[in-house]
């Protein structure tokens, strides 16, 4: 069963996740070998060695959180970083799936994550007679406010479990969002593509109150000549 669908249903309402389903077909057919996977899907495997790919396959075959916990993570991460147009939020960034994977990749996080989720429901049930994922936003905030601000003068590991849990969830939510396609768009990062660096734009220099030293600039690459073969005189002066 597609766990992501139920998460999307909870957060976005029924039907909203349809577009995402195409990427999440249940794979039950014969598994291709690791080598076949690499050969036919180099793009998909992002330069993994066979051993690394095996580890990813192994982790993907394990399950850390049950369906209820995944839904709770989805709800909690969306309270931490509410979706905002046009770049969505944790669900569009696949933050719950990311946290599931990281929890398996870093087993030392598991107790804090699993225990924290149990604490959240226990506390919510005690206070409001309802599980966290079904509570109102107001109730959720009442629970989170006391644990969302850790004491910055004290080492985190000396603070209560629920504070450590929230700190971890916030970190994973924000990092998961901003390492996603929608998060990078929200941030506005312009790199990771071929281009020609030719210095800081004038308006940026002005904004930050710095300027280029003309003497320094004179030594820098003339990008209009980057394609011309380098030649030097005997003293090492570039001629081209």
């Amino acid at each position, binding site marked *: 069963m597609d766990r992501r669908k139920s998460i999307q249903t909870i957060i976005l309402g029924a039907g909203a996740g349809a577009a995402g389903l195409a990427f999440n077909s249940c794979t039950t057919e014969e598994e291709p070998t690791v080598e076949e996977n*690499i050969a036919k899907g*180099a793009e*998909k495997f*992002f*330069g993994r*060695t066979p051993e*690394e790919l095996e580890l*990813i396959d192994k982790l993907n075959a394990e399950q850390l959180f049950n369906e209820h916990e995944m839904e709770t993570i989805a709800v909690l991460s969306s309270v*931490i*970083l*509410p979706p*905002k147009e046009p770049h969505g939020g944790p669900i569009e960034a696949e933050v719950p*799936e990311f946290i599931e994977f*990281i929890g398996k*990749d*870093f087993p030392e996080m598991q107790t804090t994550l699993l225990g924290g989720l149990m604490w959240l429901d226990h506390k919510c049930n005690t206070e409001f007679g309802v599980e966290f994922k079904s509570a109102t936003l107001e109730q959720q905030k009442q629970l*989170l406010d006391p644990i*969302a*601000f850790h004491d*910055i003068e004290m080492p985190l590991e000396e603070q209560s479990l629920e504070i450590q849990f929230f700190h971890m969830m*916030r*970190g*994973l939510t*924000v*990092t998961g969002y*901003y*390492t*996603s*396609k929608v998060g*990078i768009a929200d*941030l*506005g*990062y312009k*790199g*990771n*593509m*071929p*281009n*020609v*660096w*030719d210095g*800081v*734009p004038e*308006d*940026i220099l002005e904004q*930050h109150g*710095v*300027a280029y030293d003309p003497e*320094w600039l004179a*030594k*820098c*690459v*003339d990008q209009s*000549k980057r*394609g*011309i073969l*380098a030649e030097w005189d005997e003293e*090492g002066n*570039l001629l*081209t």
Partner: protein
Amino acid sequence: MQIKESSELYDVIIVGSGAGGGMATKQLADAGLNVAVVEAGPFFDPANPEQMTQLKWPYESPRRGAATTRAFGEWDAAYGGWEIEGEPYTHTEGTKFDWFRSHMLGGRTNHWGRISLRFGPKDFKGKTRDGHGEDWPIGYEDVKPYYDKVDKLIGVFGTNEGLPDDPDGFFLPPPKPRLHELFYINGARKSGIPVIPSRMSMLTKKINKDRGVCFYCGQCSRSCSVYADFSAGSCLIFPAQKSGGRVKIFVNSVVREVTTNEEGKATGVSYISKDDRKEYRLKGKVVVLAASACSSARILLNSKSKQHPNGLGNSSDHVGKYLHDSTGASRVAFIPGLMNRKTSYNEDGVGGMHVYSPWWGDNSKLDFPRGYHIEMWGGMGMPNYGFGSSPNEFNKFFGLQVGGYGDSLRDDVKKYYGSVVGFGGRGEAIARKDNYCEIDPTTVDQFGIPVLKFNYKWSDFERKQAKHMQDTFEEIVHNMGGEPLGEKPGKDSDYGLLAPGRIIHEVGTTRMGNDPKTSVTNKYQQLHDVDNVFIVDAGPFVSQADKNCTWTILALSWRASDYIIEQLKQQNI
């Protein structure tokens, strides 16, 4: 089980395919020799789509770049790491050494920082300079012609500054500084610390028809798919093959020992194939070790025979001695002047820094010998695992609450994006005989080969250098209007001095010299004891400088290769 021996007799067998092995392959194959390259790891080509990590986005991986399987994050090109399963190393109690190995064609050159600094005249004459360590049997004037040739063959950007111990070269033009680098230039100069354009081996301009020009993705640690950065496979070994050279590459082949005959001369190597876990022998007229300073020492020490009972080339008992790495300490800082940045432009630049500070100090006024250079980093980099995990930590500097949740976190992430800079000092440690690696007689790796045991301790010289680094970083941060992050490392933590090995500049284990009693090779990197074995990695370094070692490995490997060609011509070996 019988050891399988190939019938072919190679002119030269080269063990290892990194900077030293790659350069020897290029020079010796170009000279028409029949070359076998034996590499412990797999074949690697950064242009191979199946191995390429360049231009991948964090979301293409379920762990978004986390460092689970690769020490420097999962996009880093190096296969291997600080620990390799089935291939341990051990330590003498109370000592430390962290050993980074990369087993793949091209070795560690696939991910290195490309900081390509020549050693200067003083760097070859340490003992003359201050009484510490030993002088090299060669000087800058011996190496200069090779540095010049390396500059032109491989390509390095930089500027001729006329500095006494940071020699000029044949440079490509450097890229313009980024915003945080302008802040650094101002901050450092305020304290009289020089800042000049970096010297790094990426092509900012075309140098030949086989290699592309840098397209400024800032990802040289992923190894460049258009070969615009220097990696030994793509820039030396492939071109050697392409120009018709006889180069046979044996991958997944772990060399156990150098084999010798009755006269004690080398006859080739034996290796274990990782593919079938069987032992093989290759025959060669000359053996060139380039497995890295420590791995080559290990091979020599494991090559025991009737003629060489203490290990090959080890009649002096100096193999493994004088092991030393660069010193390293770092600090990061928050710079309020770099807050609220516009993300309207791409500032990836080349991988790493566009500016740096060569050593400027006057040791007569300092309490430690030698010096260090400062590397710095920062900028609006691509988010990866860990990005934004403390989204508003810097609120504390403004008396604002740290933590919370909600829409404000988005504003916090953007407000502070690109406002952190880091500084690293990389300095020269004094080479000492009592810092060494040796064979651990109690431990073997999964191939049955005895492993290395390390014995390394820093001295107060290195600690004082680290203290100087920390004081300097704080001063620069202050000049930049910033706030250093975390506690300033103090005496109890050796001032943040990293464990030996951490800078991955280990050298000195088979040092060169004129006296066979106190050195392993002669000044042409030929074993004193066996004239047809050479070492072209950083093992023969007498001392590390306040530089990085790769450019000198390349120059010296070329020089040793010229000597091998000449000696073969004269039928001396």
